[in-house]
């Protein structure tokens, strides 16, 4: 899959996503680019019935996950009955159309 780019602080090891110009923990400016690795654990989620302009669907599940290498990210959860703590596998799919262009992002299915 295509992946998001996360950042590991070369001074203190803090993992960050999205990008910051200074480390959230030690304010360092030197980072290693990393990708999410392994399975993802569902931290929290919601089932959204009222989606914004441009997304013509109901019941999209959105959730925050934590990967095995501690990268945390939001994505679309393609699971019928999500549960906090469940293990997921990451995918990469169109999540929205903006200006006529498909925008790709993280999606998750049951491990």
């Amino acid at each position, binding site marked *: 899959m295509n992946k998001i780019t996360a950042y590991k602080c070369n001074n203190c090891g803090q993992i*960050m996503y999205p990008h910051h110009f200074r480390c959230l923990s030690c304010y360092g400016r030197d980072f290693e680019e990393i990708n999410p690795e392994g399975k993802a654990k569902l931290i929290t989620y919601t*089932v*959204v019935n*009222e989606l*914004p*302009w441009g997304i013509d669907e109901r019941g999209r599940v959105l959730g925050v996950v934590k990967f095995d290498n501690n990268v945390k990210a939001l994505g679309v959860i393609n699971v019928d009955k999500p549960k906090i703590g469940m293990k997921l596998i990451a995918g990469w799919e169109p999540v*929205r159309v903006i200006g006529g262009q498909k925008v790709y992002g993280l999606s998750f299915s049951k491990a």
Partner: protein
Amino acid sequence: MRPVVVSGVGMIPFERRDEDSLVDMMAMAGLRAMDDAGLGDRPVDSVYVGNMASGLFNHQVSVASALVDRLSLMPAAADRVENGPASGGSAVKNGFLAVASGFNDVVLVIGGEKMREVIGPRATDIVACMTHPLAEYIYGVTLPAMAGMFTRLYMEKYGVTRKHLTEVAVKNQENGLLNPYAHIQMKITMEGTLTHPQAHVNNPVVADPIHLYDCCPVSDGAAAVLLTTEEIAKELSKPSVYIAGVGQATDTHTLQERSDPTELKAVQIASQKAFEMAELTPQDIDVAELHDAFTILEIAESEQAGFFPLGEGGKAVDAGETRIGGSLPINPSGGLKARGHPVGATGVAQVVELVWQLRNEAGEHQVEDASKGFSLNFGGFGNNVLAFVLRREG
């Protein structure tokens, strides 16, 4: 710093206002604040306008310049202050600093938003523009979705229940019935929104576990405060209510990067700073206006601002402690839930409500013997928060 007095306040009713432009609404609120103070023809030094998204909602920018023209306040300085849902609070803070620093003697702060000019899903999208463009917005995240994810964690960690959330909604809509400025003038019941087998028809899921009546409405409206020095306040007509404490703090843009997403650090720090400046504690406060854009936020803020221990906010609602007449009335105005949430107006409207309460001018929703008040204006999903402590003279 010099003491800063709220010498005049004014609001227009929050509702759907098809006939009035954004600048019209703000001008009406501003005039009411000037007249409330008895300002007459005395000049205003500066105008701060709290507004989040006039360019997107109303296709108009430079609204502060338009507003001073509409009110013939030239050559007063004029600035628009944009800080998401905390735009109003940030505008009040800027006005406070202008007077406290000695830069200005008379400052008019006006917050306004006209959101009903666009259809609902478009308004939802405009508000969602405050989320992170790549890490959140592209997925279709909305503010109710953020609240849904937060609520699920808060319920699991602290035992908040749907009953607690619905009790906040019922209370605040009851309070709104007593406030002629409130957008939602409708009583709801626990049965109709929670316990009846068909309650989900009235109160459908918006972003699970958030239901319709857990959310504030989308409103048009404006509110204004006139801030002056102590000396000028004594020459004007109203009893002095001081801005005794101001606090502001920020947190990470995304919820996911907080080590504990249930911890609202910006709420905690902004509140502490406001109390420290005022040399007061949460126990000294008689009335609070909290940012209940979603019912969970009233409970979480009441705990994290220091009024109740963590995990006790829901129980306090259940016990009636936060009702008018309770040990700490919260949102006697109806809050964002019933008064409405024209985004840039809210932080100013909270201060207007506190001034009415502390002057004993709040009418049917008056809190008895209130002399110290607290307000909290919550920007983003807790990433930029302002807190104010107000105190009546004497």
